[in-house]
Structures are given as C-alpha cells and as structure tokens.
C-alpha cells in the first residue's frame, strides 16, 4: 500500500480568499512577464528570419564559410565577419578575465591591514563606474590614443619579439617536429603592414570594455563566499593566497564563469567601439595586424549604404547569425553551469 504523502495535504490546504486572489494576480503578472520575454525573442528571430530570406535563398548555409565580400559581383560571404567576431571576442576574453579576476581577488581577499576598507570601497566604485562608460567613449579613446600607440610602438615591438623568440626556439621546435616548425614559420600572427586599425586593437579595446563587467560580477561572486570557508583554510595554516586558491576560488567558480560569459556576450555584440578601431576590412584576417570586421561592425557600416536588396538581406542575416552565436554561447554556458553546479547554488554552508 502506498502511504499518503502527509505534505500533500499541507500543500492543498485551502487558502483564504484574499490570499488566493493575491496568488492569482501574482501568477498572472509573472506569466505575462515571462511570456513577454519569450515573445520578444521569438519576434526578433522571426523578423531576422524573414528579412534574410533573399540572402538565404541566394547563398544557403555556405554563406558562413564563404570568405568573399564583393559588391561588384554581388557575392556576400560572412566568413570574414564571423572570424572577426569570434577572434576579437576570444582575444578580449583571454586578456580581460585574468585582469578582472585579479582585481576582484585584490578587492575581496587581501588582508584588511594590507588594504583599508575605505580604499577598497572606493576602488570597487571606480570599477563599477568604468562599466557604465558608454562604448563610444571607449571607441574614441581607442581611435585617438590606442591606435596610434599600437602603430608606432606596440605592434612593431610585438613583431620583433615574436621573431626573436621564433629564432630562439626554432632549432628545438624543428628538432622535435619539422612540420610544426615550418608551419609556425609561415603562420606568424604578426605579419602584414602595420596600420594600427586592426584586429588586435579591436580586441584590446574590447578587453578594456569587458574588464569592468567581469570584475564587478566576479567580485560579487567572491564576496558571496562564506567567510568560514576561507577561515577553514587559514586555520590549517594556509597563506592568504592558498586560502583564496583552494577554498574561495573553487567555491565561486560558477559565478566567475558566469561573469566571463557575460563579458563574452558584451564583446560579441559590441558595435561602436569596434567599428572605430577595427579598420572595417572585408577580407578574412590572416594576421592580428590585418583590418577586419565583426558581424556587429558590418551591420553598423554597411546597413545604411547597402547597394541593393540582396546586400540588405545579407546584413540582416549577419544580425541573425550574431543573435544565434550569443544565444548559443549562453546556452552552452548554462549547460556547463548546470553540469558543474558549484556549492554556491546547491546548498552547503
């Protein structure tokens, strides 16, 4: 015989009239809210889908692997922009996450004696402030300060450092694997004419824009780690850094990961700042010193001056692909978070 679940009756306890109406209204409001969010997403997808029908008919799925963008022959491939989007965002994230995480560790984990709490609060405010600066400001800074500096100093420096390092390790690499050596010799990421308005500059501007976002959110994640977790390590004789690394960072890992994904989302879709510094080349970049485009910068630069309905439709498809990429990133991130649920979300003291 199955025993009745005693909680079932508790849950079914008849509620008073007032409470029921409150519940109903509450449920109604949140349902409408949730429905509206889904509705907006579906509507956007629908508009992009129908708007890109001409492009999809002309190029099919091959558009994402087609490297040619040629107005004169009406061939519009989106590979250069997909390349540009993924490359700049990936580099930006690789540059930004360590710096952002470093700053949030600095602000949350340093001993109170080493960093007075007033100064700590002020620094946290500055980080939050940076996250609120409009992207056009970053773009102008990138164009007038970063790009000239990259052109005159950083880019030539990187190239010669890479070459020197290459000469240094070439014999060893060649001895281990002649194939790899030959490949590395012809695949320097620092070839081409140095113009300053290029993939690398765009990546750096993106990194700088993403740092405050990642820093602010990962700081919150670190601050939310229960103090007893940290004290457990300290009481065993851990140094401050060991306690951070062994007890605090693992506990906050899902929050840090979430912060990085949010930063990635911002980088993927960033438009103005990138448009100003990436050079808006329409060929696939083969070097970090090449100009390029991202899906977002393509839309910004080509939409208003599209030469015909086909190009117009292709640009809408660029928007569709950008949306799908960001959705995909978020879904994968969520799946990973769900898989490696950190204790912050799954109970535990």
């Amino acid at each position: 015989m199955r025993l009745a679940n005693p909680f079932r009756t508790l849950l079914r306890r008849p509620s008073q009239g007032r409470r029921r109406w409150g519940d109903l209204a509450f449920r109604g409001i949140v349902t409408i809210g949730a429905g509206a969010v889904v509705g907006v997403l579906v509507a956007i997808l629908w508009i992009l889908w129908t708007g890109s029908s001409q492009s999809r008919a002309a190029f099919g799925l091959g558009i994402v692997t087609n490297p040619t963008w040629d107005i004169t022959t009406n061939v519009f491939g989106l590979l250069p922009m997909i390349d540009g989007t993924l490359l700049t965002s990936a580099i930006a994230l690789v540059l930004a996450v360590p710096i952002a995480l470093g700053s949030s560790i600095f602000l949350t984990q340093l001993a109170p004696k080493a960093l007075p709490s007033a100064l700590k609060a002020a620094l946290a405010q500055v980080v939050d402030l940076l996250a609120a600066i409009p992207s056009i400001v970053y773009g102008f800074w990138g164009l007038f300060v970063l790009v000239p500096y990259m052109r005159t100093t950083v880019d030539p420096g990187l190239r010669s450092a890479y070459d020197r390092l290459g000469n240094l390790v070439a014999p060893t690499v060649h001895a281990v694997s002649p194939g790899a050596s030959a490949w590395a010799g012809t695949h320097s990421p620092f070839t081409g004419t140095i113009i300053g308005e290029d993939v690398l500059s765009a990546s750096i501007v993106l990194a700088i824009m993403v740092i405050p976002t990642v820093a602010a959110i990962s700081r919150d994640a670190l601050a939310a780690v229960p103090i007893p977790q940290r004290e457990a390590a300290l009481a065993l004789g851990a140094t401050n850094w060991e306690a951070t690394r062994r007890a605090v960072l693992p506990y906050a890992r899902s929050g840090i990961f979430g912060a990085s994904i949010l930063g990635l989302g911002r980088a993927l879709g960033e438009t103005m700042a990138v448009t100003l510094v990436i050079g808006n080349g329409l060929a696939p970049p083969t070097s970090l010193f090449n100009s390029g485009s991202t899906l977002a910068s393509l839309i910004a630069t080509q939409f208003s001056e599209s030469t015909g309905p086909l190009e117009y439709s292709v640009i809408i498809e660029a928007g569709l692909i950008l949306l799908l990429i960001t959705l995909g990133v978020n879904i994968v991130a969520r799946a990973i978070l769900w898989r490696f649920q950190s204790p912050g979300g799954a109970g535990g003291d």
Partner: protein
Amino acid sequence: MDATKMAAVGLSASYGRGPAITDINLEFGPNSATAIIGPSGCGKSTFIRCLNRMHETAPRATVTGKVFLDGEDIYEQDPTAVRRRIGMVFQRPNPFATMTIFDNVAAALRFNGRHSREETDKIVYESLQAAALWEEVKDHLFAGATSLSGGQQQRLCIARALAAQPEVLLMDEPCSALDPISTAKVEDLIFTLKRTYTVIIVTHNMQQAARVADRTAFFYLGKLIEVNDTKEIFERPKEKLTEGYVSGRFG
C-alpha cells in the same frame, strides 16, 4: 596543574571600537581539556581566536598582550606556522564545500609541506579514525563533503584539524549546531582527544563543560572571572558571578 602548554598573558582584543576581551591571563596544561564558559557575547570566541591568531583576520581587529606556546610568544612568529601547530574547529561545520571527504582531510596536508601519496592516504585514514568518522565514510570517501549530515561534517572538520597534526586543538562551540546524538559522539571524541592534545573548548552548555573538561574558565563581559578545576567551578565557585551563572540565574 603540573605544566603549561599554552598561556595567555595580559591578552586584550577589540574589533576597532571598545575592547571585546580585557587583560586575560589564563594557562592551559598539556593533555587536558579546558572549557571556556560564559554568557553570549562575553568574548569567548574572540579569546579563542586570539589563541591561533585568527582574530587578526577580522577587519579593524586589534590584539595586545602575549600568548605563549611552549614558552614562546606566538605573536612573534609567522601566523601560518602558528596555525599549523594550533588547530581550530568552528561553531558551524565548515568543510570545504567544493571538495570530497578525502580531499577535505588531505587539504590539511597541502598547506603543510609535501607529502607522498602513501603518507597522505595514511594520515587521512588515521585522522578519520581519530575523529570517529571512518566507519561511516569509508565507502564513499570521494563523495562531496556536503553530502554528509551536520554531525558528520563537524567530525570531518575535526579530522581535518587533526590531519595537520597540531599540538593544541581549539573548539568554538563545536556542538551548538548539532543534534543530541551527534553532540554525544563529538563529546566522546573530545574525551579521547584530550589524552593526546591540549584541548580548549568554548561552550555555553554547562553540562558539556562538566562532562569533558578538566578545568573550566568563566568569562563575563570580556573578563576572566574565575578559573579552576571543573568540579570546583560547578560545586564551589569562589565568585558570586560564577555562582550566579553556573546555577542558571543568568546567561
């Protein structure tokens, strides 16, 4: 008391404003348990956290006075080295939430020099045995530590503290978050541990003090009021305040 393992001399501490404890002088003998009792907020936790230099990790914390371990002032030494010699068990069980049961205990060794695999396995086994937890966890050593019950988690924390092979064990109300059965287990454990360690246990449970402690110190408003053999404190307290507290008139 024939010898002194640890001694607080003129120890005062604060959290930036008024003093939380004032001018405490207290000695602890080896291989014995000392209970610290007193009403909530009287500075028991603050005091015990000064004994392994954890107090200074709080914002704006200050400490004056000396704490001797084997005759040497721990405030003249490296705090991480001090904490390896003086283990601590906290009020609420705080196993490392991201680690397995095994790793929680092994973590103690990680901060404590290099150990071979065999050594680590051996110390983890011995520590879990000593904390009377081995039988309950031996079949799922690699399960997450938070899968254990509260009482098991606290014994895991004791095992973790023991794995660092300390000389002194500080326990801050180790049973206050536990059910009666778990409490009884931990008390039995303390009874065994005090044969090999210097145990200092904070408790607001007087029966517990009477059961496990050889000596008992009564704190009130940040001051040490009286310290004596546990039996004396409970049966023939010298101070009016102590008498009022142990007879349950306040607290």
